[in-house]
Protein backbone atom coordinates (compact mmCIF):
# COMPACT_ATOMS: atom_id res chain seq x y z
CA UNK A 1 0.00 0.00 0.00
CA UNK A 2 2.94 2.27 0.70
CA UNK A 3 4.11 2.64 -2.91
CA UNK A 4 0.60 3.35 -4.14
CA UNK A 5 0.22 5.99 -1.48
CA UNK A 6 3.45 7.59 -2.63
CA UNK A 7 2.47 7.39 -6.27
CA UNK A 8 -0.86 9.04 -5.48
CA UNK A 9 1.02 11.69 -3.59
CA UNK A 10 3.33 12.11 -6.57
CA UNK A 11 0.45 12.48 -8.97
CA UNK A 12 -1.24 14.98 -6.68
CA UNK A 13 2.01 16.92 -6.38
CA UNK A 14 2.60 17.00 -10.12
CA UNK A 15 -0.99 18.08 -10.67
CA UNK A 16 -0.45 20.86 -8.20
CA UNK A 17 3.00 21.86 -9.34
CA UNK A 18 2.93 21.22 -13.08
CA UNK A 19 0.35 23.81 -14.12
CA UNK A 20 1.99 26.56 -12.12
CA UNK A 21 5.39 26.02 -13.74
CA UNK A 22 4.30 25.08 -17.22
CA UNK A 23 5.43 27.25 -20.08
CA UNK A 24 5.05 27.15 -23.78
CA UNK A 25 8.05 26.66 -26.01
CA UNK A 26 6.93 29.42 -28.35
CA UNK A 27 5.64 32.26 -26.15
CA UNK A 28 3.08 33.26 -23.56
CA UNK A 29 0.87 35.84 -25.24
CA UNK A 30 -2.59 34.55 -26.11
CA UNK A 31 -5.27 36.38 -28.00
CA UNK A 32 -8.78 35.15 -27.24
CA UNK A 33 -11.18 36.12 -30.00
CA UNK A 34 -14.72 35.93 -28.69
CA UNK A 35 -18.24 36.34 -29.81
CA UNK A 36 -20.43 39.13 -28.53
CA UNK A 37 -22.97 36.52 -27.45
CA UNK A 38 -20.61 34.51 -25.27
CA UNK A 39 -20.13 35.20 -21.56
CA UNK A 40 -16.42 34.78 -20.79
CA UNK A 41 -17.19 34.09 -17.16
CA UNK A 42 -18.74 30.76 -18.25
CA UNK A 43 -15.22 29.56 -19.13
CA UNK A 44 -13.36 30.88 -16.08
CA UNK A 45 -11.88 27.50 -15.13
CA UNK A 46 -10.24 27.23 -18.54
CA UNK A 47 -8.90 30.79 -18.38
CA UNK A 48 -7.64 30.23 -14.84
CA UNK A 49 -5.94 27.04 -15.96
CA UNK A 50 -4.17 28.89 -18.77
CA UNK A 51 -3.21 31.82 -16.53
CA UNK A 52 -1.79 29.50 -13.90
CA UNK A 53 0.46 28.03 -16.61
CA UNK A 54 1.84 31.48 -17.19
CA UNK A 55 -0.17 32.57 -20.20
CA UNK A 56 -1.01 36.21 -20.69
CA UNK A 57 -4.58 36.36 -22.03
CA UNK A 58 -5.90 39.23 -24.10
CA UNK A 59 -9.60 39.26 -24.94
CA UNK A 60 -11.00 40.77 -28.07
CA UNK A 61 -14.44 40.63 -29.61
CA UNK A 62 -14.88 39.92 -33.31
CA UNK A 63 -16.52 43.31 -33.69
CA UNK A 64 -13.37 45.04 -32.49
CA UNK A 65 -10.31 45.83 -34.58
CA UNK A 66 -7.64 46.00 -31.88
CA UNK A 67 -5.33 44.59 -30.77
CA UNK A 68 -4.24 43.38 -34.19
CA UNK A 69 -2.86 39.88 -34.65
CA UNK A 70 0.20 41.23 -36.39
CA UNK A 71 1.85 44.60 -36.75
CA UNK A 72 3.91 45.22 -39.87
CA UNK A 73 3.73 41.51 -40.59
CA UNK A 74 5.27 40.66 -37.21
CA UNK A 75 2.93 38.48 -35.16
CA UNK A 76 1.81 40.18 -31.94
CA UNK A 77 0.66 36.99 -30.24
CA UNK A 78 2.06 33.51 -29.94
CA UNK A 79 -1.33 31.85 -29.78
CA UNK A 80 -4.89 32.61 -30.77
CA UNK A 81 -8.04 31.01 -29.41
CA UNK A 82 -10.93 31.53 -31.83
CA UNK A 83 -13.88 31.14 -29.49
CA UNK A 84 -16.35 32.78 -31.81
CA UNK A 85 -18.35 30.05 -33.47
CA UNK A 86 -21.38 32.07 -34.43
CA UNK A 87 -19.71 35.17 -35.85
CA UNK A 88 -20.69 35.66 -39.46
CA UNK A 89 -17.91 38.06 -40.33
CA UNK A 90 -14.42 38.49 -38.98
CA UNK A 91 -12.19 41.54 -39.08
CA UNK A 92 -9.58 41.60 -41.81
CA UNK A 93 -6.72 40.46 -39.59
CA UNK A 94 -8.78 37.41 -38.52
CA UNK A 95 -9.91 36.40 -41.97
CA UNK A 96 -9.21 32.80 -43.01
CA UNK A 97 -6.35 33.98 -45.23
CA UNK A 98 -4.77 35.98 -42.40
CA UNK A 99 -5.09 33.10 -39.96
CA UNK A 100 -3.53 30.64 -42.42
CA UNK A 101 -0.76 33.15 -43.07
CA UNK A 102 -0.09 33.51 -39.33
CA UNK A 103 -0.15 29.77 -38.76
CA UNK A 104 2.14 28.87 -41.64
CA UNK A 105 4.85 31.41 -40.85
CA UNK A 106 8.03 29.39 -41.03
CA UNK A 107 9.92 31.43 -38.43
CA UNK A 108 7.39 32.61 -35.87
CA UNK A 109 4.16 30.68 -36.35
CA UNK A 110 1.04 31.57 -34.40
CA UNK A 111 -0.77 28.56 -32.96
CA UNK A 112 -4.54 28.64 -33.26
CA UNK A 113 -7.26 26.84 -31.33
CA UNK A 114 -10.61 26.79 -33.13
CA UNK A 115 -13.75 26.03 -31.16
CA UNK A 116 -16.99 25.24 -32.97
CA UNK A 117 -20.55 24.56 -32.06
CA UNK A 118 -23.39 22.88 -33.92
CA UNK A 119 -25.14 26.06 -34.85
CA UNK A 120 -22.02 27.28 -36.63
CA UNK A 121 -23.53 28.80 -39.74
CA UNK A 122 -21.88 28.91 -43.11
CA UNK A 123 -19.25 31.07 -41.53
CA UNK A 124 -15.65 31.75 -42.44
CA UNK A 125 -14.72 28.89 -40.09
CA UNK A 126 -16.43 26.40 -42.37
CA UNK A 127 -14.42 27.68 -45.32
CA UNK A 128 -11.29 27.73 -43.23
CA UNK A 129 -11.83 24.10 -42.27
CA UNK A 130 -11.50 23.13 -45.90
CA UNK A 131 -8.01 24.64 -45.93
CA UNK A 132 -7.07 22.06 -43.32
CA UNK A 133 -8.87 19.17 -44.97
CA UNK A 134 -11.76 19.23 -42.51
CA UNK A 135 -15.35 19.35 -43.68
CA UNK A 136 -18.48 19.78 -41.59
CA UNK A 137 -21.99 18.38 -41.79
CA UNK A 138 -24.82 20.76 -42.69
CA UNK A 139 -25.49 23.59 -40.21
CA UNK A 140 -27.49 22.90 -37.06
CA UNK A 141 -26.81 19.17 -37.12
CA UNK A 142 -25.05 18.32 -33.85
CA UNK A 143 -23.66 14.95 -32.97
CA UNK A 144 -26.29 12.55 -31.65
CA UNK A 145 -25.59 9.27 -29.92
CA UNK A 146 -28.18 7.42 -27.85
CA UNK A 147 -25.63 4.93 -26.53
CA UNK A 148 -23.23 7.43 -24.95
CA UNK A 149 -25.75 10.12 -24.06
CA UNK A 150 -25.99 11.60 -20.59
CA UNK A 151 -29.72 10.91 -20.66
CA UNK A 152 -31.97 9.50 -23.43
CA UNK A 153 -33.93 12.72 -23.55
CA UNK A 154 -30.74 14.72 -24.27
CA UNK A 155 -28.90 12.70 -26.89
CA UNK A 156 -26.65 15.59 -27.96
CA UNK A 157 -24.80 15.70 -24.62
CA UNK A 158 -22.41 12.79 -24.71
CA UNK A 159 -20.06 11.33 -22.13
CA UNK A 160 -16.93 10.18 -23.96
CA UNK A 161 -13.62 8.67 -22.89
CA UNK A 162 -10.79 10.21 -24.89
CA UNK A 163 -7.83 7.87 -25.44
CA UNK A 164 -4.67 8.45 -23.44
CA UNK A 165 -1.91 9.75 -25.61
CA UNK A 166 1.53 11.31 -25.10
CA UNK A 167 0.25 14.40 -26.87
CA UNK A 168 -2.37 15.09 -24.17
CA UNK A 169 0.07 14.82 -21.31
CA UNK A 170 -1.95 16.56 -18.61
CA UNK A 171 -5.02 14.42 -19.22
CA UNK A 172 -5.02 11.24 -17.17
CA UNK A 173 -8.19 9.55 -18.23
CA UNK A 174 -11.82 9.92 -17.36
CA UNK A 175 -15.07 10.88 -19.00
CA UNK A 176 -15.61 14.20 -20.70
CA UNK A 177 -18.87 15.90 -21.50
CA UNK A 178 -19.08 16.62 -25.23
CA UNK A 179 -21.89 18.47 -26.88
CA UNK A 180 -21.15 19.71 -30.32
CA UNK A 181 -20.42 19.02 -33.93
CA UNK A 182 -18.44 16.34 -35.67
CA UNK A 183 -16.30 16.73 -38.76
CA UNK A 184 -14.86 14.59 -41.51
CA UNK A 185 -11.09 14.48 -41.91
CA UNK A 186 -9.45 14.23 -45.30
CA UNK A 187 -6.40 12.07 -45.83
CA UNK A 188 -4.15 15.06 -45.20
CA UNK A 189 -1.09 13.57 -43.45
CA UNK A 190 -0.62 16.71 -41.36
CA UNK A 191 -3.86 16.09 -39.46
CA UNK A 192 -3.55 14.50 -36.03
CA UNK A 193 -6.49 12.53 -34.65
CA UNK A 194 -7.16 13.39 -31.04
CA UNK A 195 -10.72 12.23 -30.49
CA UNK A 196 -13.01 10.29 -32.79
CA UNK A 197 -16.79 10.16 -32.66
CA UNK A 198 -18.32 7.02 -31.15
CA UNK A 199 -19.24 4.34 -33.70
CA UNK A 200 -22.92 4.69 -32.80
CA UNK A 201 -23.08 8.44 -33.33
CA UNK A 202 -24.40 10.48 -36.23
CA UNK A 203 -25.06 14.08 -37.12
CA UNK A 204 -28.68 15.16 -37.40
CA UNK A 205 -31.15 17.85 -36.55
CA UNK A 206 -31.96 17.13 -32.87
CA UNK A 207 -35.60 18.12 -33.31
CA UNK A 208 -36.04 15.44 -35.98
CA UNK A 209 -33.28 12.94 -35.17
CA UNK A 210 -34.83 10.08 -37.11
CA UNK A 211 -35.19 12.02 -40.36
CA UNK A 212 -31.50 11.86 -41.21
CA UNK A 213 -31.51 8.09 -40.80
CA UNK A 214 -34.67 7.67 -42.86
CA UNK A 215 -33.26 9.79 -45.64
CA UNK A 216 -29.95 7.97 -45.56
CA UNK A 217 -31.72 4.61 -45.63
CA UNK A 218 -33.71 5.72 -48.66
CA UNK A 219 -30.57 6.80 -50.49
CA UNK A 220 -28.52 3.74 -49.61
CA UNK A 221 -26.58 5.29 -46.72
CA UNK A 222 -25.48 8.29 -48.71
CA UNK A 223 -25.36 11.63 -46.93
CA UNK A 224 -25.30 10.31 -43.38
CA UNK A 225 -22.49 11.83 -41.33
CA UNK A 226 -22.09 8.90 -38.97
CA UNK A 227 -19.70 6.42 -37.46
CA UNK A 228 -16.33 6.20 -35.76
CA UNK A 229 -14.37 7.76 -38.59
CA UNK A 230 -15.84 11.18 -37.89
CA UNK A 231 -13.59 13.45 -35.89
CA UNK A 232 -14.44 15.50 -32.86
CA UNK A 233 -11.03 16.91 -31.95
CA UNK A 234 -8.39 17.18 -34.64
CA UNK A 235 -4.95 18.74 -34.58
CA UNK A 236 -2.99 20.08 -37.49
CA UNK A 237 0.71 20.67 -37.68
CA UNK A 238 2.49 22.78 -40.27
CA UNK A 239 5.49 20.99 -41.71
CA UNK A 240 7.70 24.04 -42.06
CA UNK A 241 7.84 26.08 -38.87
CA UNK A 242 5.86 23.69 -36.71
CA UNK A 243 2.84 25.92 -36.16
CA UNK A 244 -0.08 24.02 -34.68
CA UNK A 245 -3.83 24.35 -35.04
CA UNK A 246 -6.57 22.49 -33.23
CA UNK A 247 -10.18 22.04 -34.19
CA UNK A 248 -12.51 21.26 -31.28
CA UNK A 249 -16.13 20.63 -32.18
CA UNK A 250 -17.65 21.50 -28.84
CA UNK A 251 -17.92 24.80 -27.04
CA UNK A 252 -19.35 22.91 -24.05
CA UNK A 253 -16.03 21.15 -23.55
CA UNK A 254 -14.51 24.35 -22.16
CA UNK A 255 -17.44 25.47 -20.02
CA UNK A 256 -17.34 25.57 -16.23
CA UNK A 257 -20.77 23.96 -16.22
CA UNK A 258 -19.30 20.82 -17.81
CA UNK A 259 -17.04 20.22 -14.80
CA UNK A 260 -19.64 17.92 -13.34
CA UNK A 261 -22.58 15.97 -14.71
CA UNK A 262 -25.30 14.94 -12.26
CA UNK A 263 -22.94 15.63 -9.39
CA UNK A 264 -20.17 13.49 -10.87
CA UNK A 265 -16.91 15.23 -11.77
CA UNK A 266 -15.75 15.09 -15.37
CA UNK A 267 -12.27 15.47 -16.81
CA UNK A 268 -13.30 18.32 -19.08
CA UNK A 269 -10.98 20.95 -17.68
CA UNK A 270 -7.96 18.66 -17.67
CA UNK A 271 -8.70 17.57 -21.25
CA UNK A 272 -9.29 21.13 -22.47
CA UNK A 273 -6.01 22.27 -20.91
CA UNK A 274 -4.20 19.25 -22.36
CA UNK A 275 -5.52 20.12 -25.82
CA UNK A 276 -4.42 23.70 -25.32
CA UNK A 277 -1.00 22.48 -24.14
CA UNK A 278 -0.47 20.56 -27.37
CA UNK A 279 -1.76 23.43 -29.48
CA UNK A 280 0.41 25.98 -27.72
CA UNK A 281 3.51 23.83 -28.25
CA UNK A 282 4.03 22.63 -24.72
CA UNK A 283 3.89 18.90 -25.35
CA UNK A 284 5.48 16.75 -28.05
CA UNK A 285 7.74 19.59 -29.15
CA UNK A 286 11.11 18.48 -30.47
CA UNK A 287 14.01 20.23 -32.06
CA UNK A 288 17.39 19.42 -33.55
CA UNK A 289 20.19 21.10 -31.62
CA UNK A 290 23.27 19.91 -33.41
CA UNK A 291 24.41 17.76 -36.28
CA UNK A 292 27.86 16.23 -36.62
CA UNK A 293 29.51 14.13 -39.23
CA UNK A 294 33.07 12.91 -39.55
CA UNK A 295 35.25 10.01 -40.51
CA UNK A 296 35.27 7.39 -37.79
CA UNK A 297 39.04 7.67 -37.56
CA UNK A 298 39.03 11.45 -37.19
CA UNK A 299 37.56 14.00 -34.78
CA UNK A 300 36.64 16.97 -36.96
CA UNK A 301 34.11 17.13 -39.79
CA UNK A 302 35.10 17.23 -43.43
CA UNK A 303 33.54 19.06 -46.31
CA UNK A 304 34.25 16.14 -48.56
CA UNK A 305 34.56 12.44 -48.04
CA UNK A 306 36.15 9.79 -50.19
CA UNK A 307 34.20 6.89 -51.61
CA UNK A 308 34.14 3.92 -49.24
CA UNK A 309 35.07 6.09 -46.25
CA UNK A 310 33.73 4.93 -42.91
CA UNK A 311 31.56 7.86 -41.85
CA UNK A 312 29.77 8.52 -38.58
CA UNK A 313 26.79 10.88 -38.40
CA UNK A 314 25.39 12.17 -35.11
CA UNK A 315 22.38 14.31 -34.37
CA UNK A 316 21.26 15.81 -31.08
CA UNK A 317 17.54 16.12 -30.37
CA UNK A 318 15.91 17.94 -27.49
CA UNK A 319 12.37 17.85 -26.24
CA UNK A 320 10.64 20.75 -24.58
CA UNK A 321 9.78 19.95 -21.00
CA UNK A 322 6.86 22.19 -20.09
CA UNK A 323 7.10 21.36 -16.37
CA UNK A 324 10.45 23.15 -16.08
CA UNK A 325 10.12 25.29 -19.20
CA UNK A 326 13.41 24.06 -20.63
CA UNK A 327 14.69 21.96 -23.48
CA UNK A 328 16.05 18.64 -22.28
CA UNK A 329 17.91 16.05 -24.38
CA UNK A 330 15.73 13.12 -25.30
CA UNK A 331 16.69 9.63 -26.39
CA UNK A 332 13.18 8.29 -26.68
CA UNK A 333 12.92 8.35 -30.48
CA UNK A 334 13.58 4.82 -31.67
CA UNK A 335 12.59 5.04 -35.34
CA UNK A 336 14.68 7.87 -36.75
CA UNK A 337 16.47 7.24 -40.02
CA UNK A 338 19.33 8.83 -41.86
CA UNK A 339 19.45 9.03 -45.62
CA UNK A 340 22.61 9.67 -47.60
CA UNK A 341 21.16 11.06 -50.77
CA UNK A 342 22.25 12.11 -54.22
CA UNK A 343 18.88 12.43 -56.00
CA UNK A 344 18.01 9.01 -54.57
CA UNK A 345 18.91 7.79 -51.11
CA UNK A 346 22.01 5.68 -51.70
CA UNK A 347 22.04 4.68 -48.05
CA UNK A 348 19.14 4.62 -45.60
CA UNK A 349 20.06 3.50 -42.14
CA UNK A 350 18.72 3.65 -38.61
CA UNK A 351 19.83 6.43 -36.28
CA UNK A 352 20.19 4.66 -32.96
CA UNK A 353 20.25 6.47 -29.62
CA UNK A 354 23.83 6.55 -28.42
CA UNK A 355 25.05 6.33 -24.84
CA UNK A 356 25.10 10.13 -24.55
CA UNK A 357 21.64 11.47 -23.75
CA UNK A 358 20.00 13.14 -26.74
CA UNK A 359 22.52 11.92 -29.30
CA UNK A 360 21.55 9.58 -32.12
CA UNK A 361 24.21 8.15 -34.37
CA UNK A 362 24.70 6.02 -37.43
CA UNK A 363 27.88 4.59 -38.90
CA UNK A 364 28.07 3.62 -42.53
CA UNK A 365 30.43 3.24 -45.43
CA UNK A 366 30.16 5.97 -48.04
CA UNK A 367 28.83 4.56 -51.31
CA UNK A 368 31.12 3.73 -54.22
CA UNK A 369 29.78 6.71 -56.12
CA UNK A 370 31.15 10.21 -56.19
CA UNK A 371 29.10 13.39 -56.32
CA UNK A 372 27.33 15.88 -54.09
CA UNK A 373 25.48 14.06 -51.35
CA UNK A 374 23.22 15.16 -48.51
CA UNK A 375 22.83 13.77 -45.03
CA UNK A 376 19.05 13.97 -44.61
CA UNK A 377 17.04 13.33 -41.48
CA UNK A 378 13.34 13.75 -42.13
CA UNK A 379 11.36 12.46 -39.19
CA UNK A 380 7.61 13.06 -39.27
CA UNK A 381 5.33 11.51 -36.74
CA UNK A 382 1.76 12.51 -36.02
CA UNK A 383 1.55 14.92 -33.13
CA UNK A 384 5.28 15.51 -32.83
CA UNK A 385 7.19 18.44 -34.27
CA UNK A 386 8.58 17.27 -37.60
CA UNK A 387 12.38 17.07 -37.55
CA UNK A 388 14.23 17.93 -40.71
CA UNK A 389 17.93 18.36 -41.24
CA UNK A 390 19.91 18.45 -44.44
CA UNK A 391 23.70 18.71 -44.67
CA UNK A 392 25.49 18.81 -48.00
CA UNK A 393 28.88 17.16 -48.45
CA UNK A 394 30.88 16.02 -51.44
CA UNK A 395 32.01 12.47 -51.99
CA UNK A 396 35.13 12.33 -54.14
CA UNK A 397 36.89 9.38 -55.76
CA UNK A 398 40.35 8.19 -54.77
CA UNK A 399 43.16 10.53 -55.72
CA UNK A 400 45.75 8.98 -58.00
CA UNK A 401 48.14 8.46 -55.09
CA UNK A 402 45.54 7.01 -52.73
CA UNK A 403 45.16 3.67 -54.43
CA UNK A 404 46.95 0.70 -52.84
CA UNK A 405 50.30 -0.08 -54.44
CA UNK A 406 52.59 -3.10 -54.70
CA UNK A 407 49.79 -5.60 -54.54
CA UNK A 408 50.78 -9.19 -53.89
CA UNK A 409 48.88 -10.34 -56.96
CA UNK A 410 51.13 -8.20 -59.16
CA UNK A 411 54.39 -9.80 -58.05
CA UNK A 412 54.73 -11.98 -61.20
CA UNK A 413 54.64 -8.82 -63.29
CA UNK A 414 57.14 -7.04 -61.08
CA UNK A 415 59.41 -10.07 -61.25
CA UNK A 416 58.97 -10.20 -65.01
CA UNK A 417 59.97 -6.58 -65.48
CA UNK A 418 62.85 -6.82 -63.00
CA UNK A 419 64.16 -10.03 -64.51
CA UNK A 420 63.99 -8.55 -68.00
CA UNK A 421 66.06 -5.59 -66.82
CA UNK A 422 68.49 -7.82 -64.98
CA UNK A 423 68.81 -10.07 -68.02
CA UNK A 424 69.41 -7.00 -70.19
CA UNK A 425 72.25 -5.85 -67.93
CA UNK A 426 73.69 -9.35 -67.82
CA UNK A 427 73.41 -9.65 -71.60
CA UNK A 428 75.14 -6.33 -72.14
CA UNK A 429 78.03 -7.24 -69.86
CA UNK A 430 78.42 -10.65 -71.46
CA UNK A 431 78.22 -9.06 -74.87
CA UNK A 432 80.96 -6.58 -74.08
CA UNK A 433 83.15 -9.26 -72.51
CA UNK A 434 82.48 -11.71 -75.32
CA UNK A 435 83.27 -9.03 -77.88
CA UNK A 436 86.72 -8.66 -76.46
CA UNK A 437 87.30 -12.39 -76.54
CA UNK A 438 86.25 -12.70 -80.14
CA UNK A 439 88.34 -9.74 -81.11
CA UNK A 440 91.31 -11.40 -79.41
CA UNK A 441 90.47 -14.67 -81.13
CA UNK A 442 90.34 -12.91 -84.44
CA UNK A 443 93.64 -11.25 -83.72
CA UNK A 444 95.27 -14.50 -82.69
CA UNK A 445 93.91 -16.21 -85.75
Amino acid at each position, binding site marked *: MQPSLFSWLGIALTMLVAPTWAKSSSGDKVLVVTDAKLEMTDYSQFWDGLRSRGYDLTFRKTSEDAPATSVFDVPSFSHIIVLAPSAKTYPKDLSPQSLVHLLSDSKQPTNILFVLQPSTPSSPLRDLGREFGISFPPPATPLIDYFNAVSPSNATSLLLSPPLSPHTAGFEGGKILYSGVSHLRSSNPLLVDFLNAPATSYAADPSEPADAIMEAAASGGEGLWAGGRMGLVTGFEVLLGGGRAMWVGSLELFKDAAASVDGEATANNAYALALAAWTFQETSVLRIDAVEHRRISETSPREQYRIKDDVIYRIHVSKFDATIGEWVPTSEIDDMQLEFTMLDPHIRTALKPSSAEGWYEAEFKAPDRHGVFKFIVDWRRKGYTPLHSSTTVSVVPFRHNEYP*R*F*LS*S*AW*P*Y*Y*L*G*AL*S*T*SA*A*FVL*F*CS*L*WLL*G*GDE*EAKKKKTQ
Partner: protein
Amino acid sequence: MPPKKVTPAVSQSTSAISGALQDLVQSYKDNTPKRVKLIDAFLLFIVLSGVAQFAYCVLVTTFPFNAFLAGFGSTIGQFVLTAAFRAQVNPATRSQFTIISPERAFADFCFGSIVLHFFVYNFLG
Protein backbone atom coordinates in the same frame (compact mmCIF):
# COMPACT_ATOMS: atom_id res chain seq x y z
CA MET B 1 81.86 -17.66 -92.68
CA PRO B 2 79.48 -19.98 -94.61
CA PRO B 3 75.86 -18.96 -95.14
CA LYS B 4 73.41 -20.28 -92.65
CA LYS B 5 71.83 -23.18 -94.45
CA VAL B 6 70.19 -25.44 -91.95
CA THR B 7 68.38 -27.88 -94.23
CA PRO B 8 70.92 -29.20 -96.62
CA ALA B 9 70.32 -32.95 -96.35
CA VAL B 10 66.93 -33.56 -94.90
CA SER B 11 65.60 -36.86 -96.28
CA GLN B 12 61.95 -36.98 -97.23
CA SER B 13 61.18 -40.15 -95.32
CA THR B 14 58.80 -39.92 -92.34
CA SER B 15 61.24 -41.48 -89.90
CA ALA B 16 63.66 -38.67 -90.51
CA ILE B 17 61.79 -35.98 -88.53
CA SER B 18 63.78 -36.53 -85.39
CA GLY B 19 66.87 -36.77 -87.50
CA ALA B 20 65.99 -33.48 -89.10
CA LEU B 21 65.55 -31.86 -85.72
CA GLN B 22 68.88 -33.22 -84.61
CA ASP B 23 70.37 -31.90 -87.82
CA LEU B 24 68.79 -28.55 -87.17
CA VAL B 25 70.20 -28.33 -83.67
CA GLN B 26 73.56 -29.60 -84.77
CA SER B 27 73.72 -27.16 -87.65
CA TYR B 28 72.71 -24.34 -85.31
CA LYS B 29 75.45 -25.34 -82.90
CA ASP B 30 78.01 -25.58 -85.61
CA ASN B 31 77.16 -22.64 -87.79
CA THR B 32 75.96 -19.98 -85.37
CA PRO B 33 78.50 -17.60 -83.90
CA LYS B 34 78.84 -17.52 -80.14
CA ARG B 35 77.58 -13.94 -79.83
CA VAL B 36 74.44 -14.73 -81.80
CA LYS B 37 73.88 -17.69 -79.52
CA LEU B 38 74.10 -15.30 -76.60
CA ILE B 39 71.44 -13.14 -78.22
CA ASP B 40 69.28 -16.20 -78.86
CA ALA B 41 69.58 -17.28 -75.23
CA PHE B 42 68.44 -13.82 -74.16
CA LEU B 43 65.52 -13.98 -76.61
CA LEU B 44 64.51 -17.40 -75.33
CA PHE B 45 64.50 -16.14 -71.75
CA ILE B 46 62.34 -13.16 -72.76
CA VAL B 47 59.87 -15.38 -74.59
CA LEU B 48 59.54 -17.72 -71.61
CA SER B 49 59.09 -14.78 -69.24
CA GLY B 50 56.42 -13.24 -71.48
CA VAL B 51 54.57 -16.52 -71.89
CA ALA B 52 54.63 -17.03 -68.11
CA GLN B 53 53.21 -13.56 -67.48
CA PHE B 54 50.53 -13.97 -70.09
CA ALA B 55 49.54 -17.32 -68.64
CA TYR B 56 49.35 -15.76 -65.16
CA CYS B 57 47.19 -12.96 -66.54
CA VAL B 58 44.80 -15.32 -68.31
CA LEU B 59 44.63 -18.01 -65.64
CA VAL B 60 44.97 -16.12 -62.35
CA THR B 61 44.25 -12.39 -62.44
CA THR B 62 44.47 -9.34 -64.62
CA PHE B 63 43.86 -7.12 -61.64
CA PRO B 64 46.70 -4.65 -61.51
CA PHE B 65 46.29 -4.40 -65.25
CA ASN B 66 48.87 -1.64 -65.52
CA ALA B 67 51.40 -3.99 -63.93
CA PHE B 68 50.53 -6.68 -66.46
CA LEU B 69 50.86 -4.24 -69.34
CA ALA B 70 54.21 -3.03 -68.00
CA GLY B 71 55.62 -6.50 -67.36
CA PHE B 72 54.33 -8.04 -70.56
CA GLY B 73 55.20 -4.92 -72.56
CA SER B 74 58.75 -4.96 -71.25
CA THR B 75 59.23 -8.50 -72.56
CA ILE B 76 57.73 -7.66 -75.94
CA GLY B 77 59.66 -4.41 -76.28
CA GLN B 78 62.88 -6.06 -75.21
CA PHE B 79 62.24 -8.90 -77.65
CA VAL B 80 61.70 -6.51 -80.55
CA LEU B 81 64.80 -4.48 -79.73
CA THR B 82 66.91 -7.58 -79.29
CA ALA B 83 65.63 -9.15 -82.50
CA ALA B 84 66.51 -5.98 -84.40
CA PHE B 85 69.91 -5.97 -82.78
CA ARG B 86 70.36 -9.62 -83.75
CA ALA B 87 69.56 -8.83 -87.36
CA GLN B 88 72.12 -6.05 -87.37
CA VAL B 89 74.98 -8.05 -85.89
CA ASN B 90 74.27 -11.49 -87.30
CA PRO B 91 76.94 -12.17 -89.98
CA ALA B 92 74.27 -13.91 -92.11
CA THR B 93 72.20 -10.74 -92.45
CA ARG B 94 74.97 -8.23 -91.82
CA SER B 95 75.14 -7.39 -95.49
CA GLN B 96 71.81 -5.58 -95.33
CA PHE B 97 73.03 -3.11 -92.66
CA THR B 98 76.34 -2.04 -94.09
CA ILE B 99 75.93 1.59 -93.10
CA ILE B 100 75.49 0.71 -89.40
CA SER B 101 78.51 -0.57 -87.60
CA PRO B 102 78.02 -3.31 -84.94
CA GLU B 103 79.13 -0.87 -82.24
CA ARG B 104 76.55 1.65 -83.36
CA ALA B 105 73.93 -1.11 -83.40
CA PHE B 106 74.82 -2.08 -79.83
CA ALA B 107 74.60 1.54 -78.71
CA ASP B 108 71.20 1.90 -80.37
CA PHE B 109 70.08 -1.30 -78.68
CA CYS B 110 71.23 -0.10 -75.26
CA PHE B 111 69.63 3.31 -75.66
CA GLY B 112 66.33 1.83 -76.82
CA SER B 113 66.31 -0.67 -74.00
CA ILE B 114 67.02 1.94 -71.34
CA VAL B 115 64.20 4.14 -72.62
CA LEU B 116 61.93 1.08 -72.67
CA HIS B 117 62.74 0.18 -69.07
CA PHE B 118 62.22 3.77 -68.01
CA PHE B 119 58.65 3.60 -69.31
CA VAL B 120 58.11 0.13 -67.91
CA TYR B 121 59.02 1.16 -64.36
CA ASN B 122 56.91 4.26 -64.59
CA PHE B 123 53.95 2.17 -65.53
CA LEU B 124 54.57 -0.78 -63.25
CA GLY B 125 53.54 0.38 -59.75
